């Protein structure tokens, strides 16, 4: 019974305090065989809904195009992929699309598929779902993909037939408010000025423009070939797209200040088409497995998935979800905000972006260093995965390690995840 090893590890445990932030970081950077690691991460270009090159690409073709690229580029036997989780919000037949697209992309019948939907966090939820399955031993290798075709799948808001128990409920009924209204609620409740919002949005555009010009985002993007219909002639041509389409070069806070309010009906009416996320098409993909598996398959280890969590809050101010989710996930891994090298926080609206940076006391230089959804666009189901792809590329460029990704979630939630680059 006198177990020497256990007594020794007990004493050693007393000597490695998880208390201080730096110790938490040291622990996070450790490499263990059962870590969940990312061996492939990429995304399509993001293009404007209804206008960009992906406007005529349905959600299934978008998923097939990206999954085909993963199969060809990852140097992994596709029969090893046991499950694919598709993060998608707007498609009304996700279940059919997910599994069918996996098969059409050249994966064998043994590769399963499912759909994850928690609005803007669906891409991150898909990553978490696959990671949890691997942790639990349900599968060994899985793919998380976030995809959205906002051109072909309209967002019609909350359905009109909701139960009286919801519409009469003081909190649940807040979900009848549109996202734009929740942005104005955040601006109004917390005194976020139009000027601060336009400044935040301009910075997003300027950073995205710089990242594109300098070629930083080249290693995020896999060019894909799609069919595009000319809006005038109706002629269908094949086109290979390589670049994000939402960036407006030369944008300044002054130029954004001239745009009229998008929601004059809701005070303080600070939100405009220029300081809110764009409607966009795009997809992003993450290939996950245990470190031990990656080593045995000789797969390149790009990064480690460390943790993810979710937190709920009042739907009417859903935008501030990251101020709950980020501290919660940092506590789980024993980090402080100072330990994080790069934050990717989804810019659903500049109001919540400004609030989250202020409330969490973040260094603005480390938040969305390549711009965010205001400049690049916010394909709802894609964003959660896209931000991970962007964060890992940026960490590699900077030679840094720890990224936190987070987003507010419609109907009043926030999700956050921690990733460690091992470039």
């Amino acid at each position, binding site marked *: *019974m*006198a177990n*020497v090893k256990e*007594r*020794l590890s*007990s*004493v050693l*445990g*007393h*000597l490695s*305090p*998880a*208390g201080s932030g730096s110790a*938490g970081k040291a622990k996070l950077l450790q490499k263990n065989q059962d870590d969940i690691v990312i061996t492939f991460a990429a995304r399509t270009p993001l293009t404007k809904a209804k206008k960009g090159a992906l406007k005529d690409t349905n959600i299934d073709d978008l998923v097939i195009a990206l999954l085909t690229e993963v199969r060809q580029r990852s140097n992994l036997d596709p029969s090893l992929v046991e499950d694919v989780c598709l993060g998608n919000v707007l498609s009304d037949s996700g279940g059919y699309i997910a599994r069918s697209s996996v098969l059409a992309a050249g994966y064998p019948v043994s590769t399963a598929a499912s759909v994850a939907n928690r609005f803007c966090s669906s891409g991150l939820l898909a990553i978490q779902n696959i990671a949890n399955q691997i942790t639990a031993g349900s599968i060994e290798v899985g793919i998380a993909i976030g995809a959205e075709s906002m051109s072909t799948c309209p967002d019609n808001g909350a359905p009109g037939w909701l139960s009286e128990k919801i519409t009469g409920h003081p909190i649940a009924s807040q979900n009848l408010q549109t996202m734009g209204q929740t942005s104005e609620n955040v601006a109004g409740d917390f005194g976020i000025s139009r000027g601060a919002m336009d400044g935040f949005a301009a910075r997003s555009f300027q950073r995205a423009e710089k990242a594109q010009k300098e070629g930083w985002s080249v290693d995020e993007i896999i060019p894909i070939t799609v069919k595009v219909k000319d809006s005038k002639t109706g002629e269908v041509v094949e086109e290979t797209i390589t670049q994000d389409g939402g960036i407006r070069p030369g944008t300044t806070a002054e130029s954004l200040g001239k745009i009229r309010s998008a929601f004059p009906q809701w005070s303080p009416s600070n939100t405009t088409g220029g300081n809110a996320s764009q409607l966009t098409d795009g997809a992003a993909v993450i290939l996950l497995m245990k470190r031990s598996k990656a080593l045995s398959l000789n797969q390149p280890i790009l990064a480690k998935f460390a943790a993810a969590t979710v937190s709920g*809050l009042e739907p009417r101010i859903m935008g501030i979800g990251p*101020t*709950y989710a*980020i*501290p919660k996930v*940092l*506590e789980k891994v*024993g980090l*402080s*905000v100072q330990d994080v090298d790069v934050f990717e926080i989804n810019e659903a609206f500049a109001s919540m972006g400004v609030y989250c940076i202020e*409330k*969490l*006391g973040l260094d603005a230089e480390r938040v969305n260093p390549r711009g965010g959804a205001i400049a690049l666009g916010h394909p709802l189901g894609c964003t959660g995965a896209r931000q991970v792809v962007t964060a890992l590329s940026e960490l590699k460029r900077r030679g840094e390690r720890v990224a936190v990704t987070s987003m507010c979630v419609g109907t009043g939630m926030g999700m956050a995840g921690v990733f460690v680059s091992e470039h």
Partner: protein
Amino acid sequence: MEYRTTGFNGYAVQYSPFVNSSIAVGAAANFGLVGNGRLYFFDLTAQGIVAQKWYNTQDAIYDIAYSEQNANQLIAGCGDGTVKLFDTKVPDYPIMEWKEHNREVYAVAWNLVSKDTFVSSSWDGTIKLYSPERPQALLTLPTHSCTYSTHFSPHSPSIISSVTSDSHLRVFDLRTPASASNHLVHLIPIHGHAPQQGPSYNPLRPRHPPSEALTHDWNKYRDTTVATAGVDTIIRTFDIRHHKHGATAHLEGHKYAVRRIAWSPHAPDMLLSASYDMTCRVWSDRMATPNITPGSHAPSQGAELGRMDVHTEFVTGVDWCLFGGQGWCASTAWDERLLVWDARSVMNQR
């Protein structure tokens, strides 16, 4: 004064509650990892520390507690899960032994009020209550977590407390009915309660992740004050009546885990600590003049009054002398030494 417990690494030290020159040390060979334990009884004499008697045990001794009934008796908690009652009138072997725990017994404590019971706690996630007259434990209190420390309240015969590896302070009151809660009346997260959403929510408040709690002690004057400490190096004081907003005071300064703390029997604000950082430190929680900002729930900051850094290995045990000089104390450590010293001398140095 100094005594070398050659071959045995100290784990616990206690002054006799009856005789001001008697002191006992529980120790273990090979740092308590494997091998025998040894219980020492010492006399403090003009010629130094004299070992009067010792007893060898099969496995390590991790904690000791003098009987409050009989000046010759003492209980020891052992690595093999046993609790042994020794009597200095009977040589070589314990007079009673209880084999109740499945894992290492890390703490024992005697009831200071009714004086007729004692408790032990173990890595097996339980606290056991015993009477020296009964061959079996009277009661088992589950903590479901490695229980490094247990005590009786010095103010009530029926209140038992513990701290555990799950970062919680538990308070049990045996007067409550033995319902599903097993007499548990307080479950206090030492690292702090989870943040609540609402107007007072502050995501930037200092956050402390849960960490193993190794030791705690009841204040001898303020009957609702308990101090806790452990792996995250911070000594905290709690008022068990108001713990929703966390600790009342933080005493910060140790570089490694705190292994043992003891409130002074003489001064209501004074506390002694022993740490893996090889120091013993004397603290004041400054509750006589609390420096709390009105409206803030941030803990007040205590003050380090002095430190004793003669030990050359992890310090595992400290105790105050109940009699005589108000600063007399003793410490034991993995450096195989019992040191008897005066806390006032290290306080004057600063």
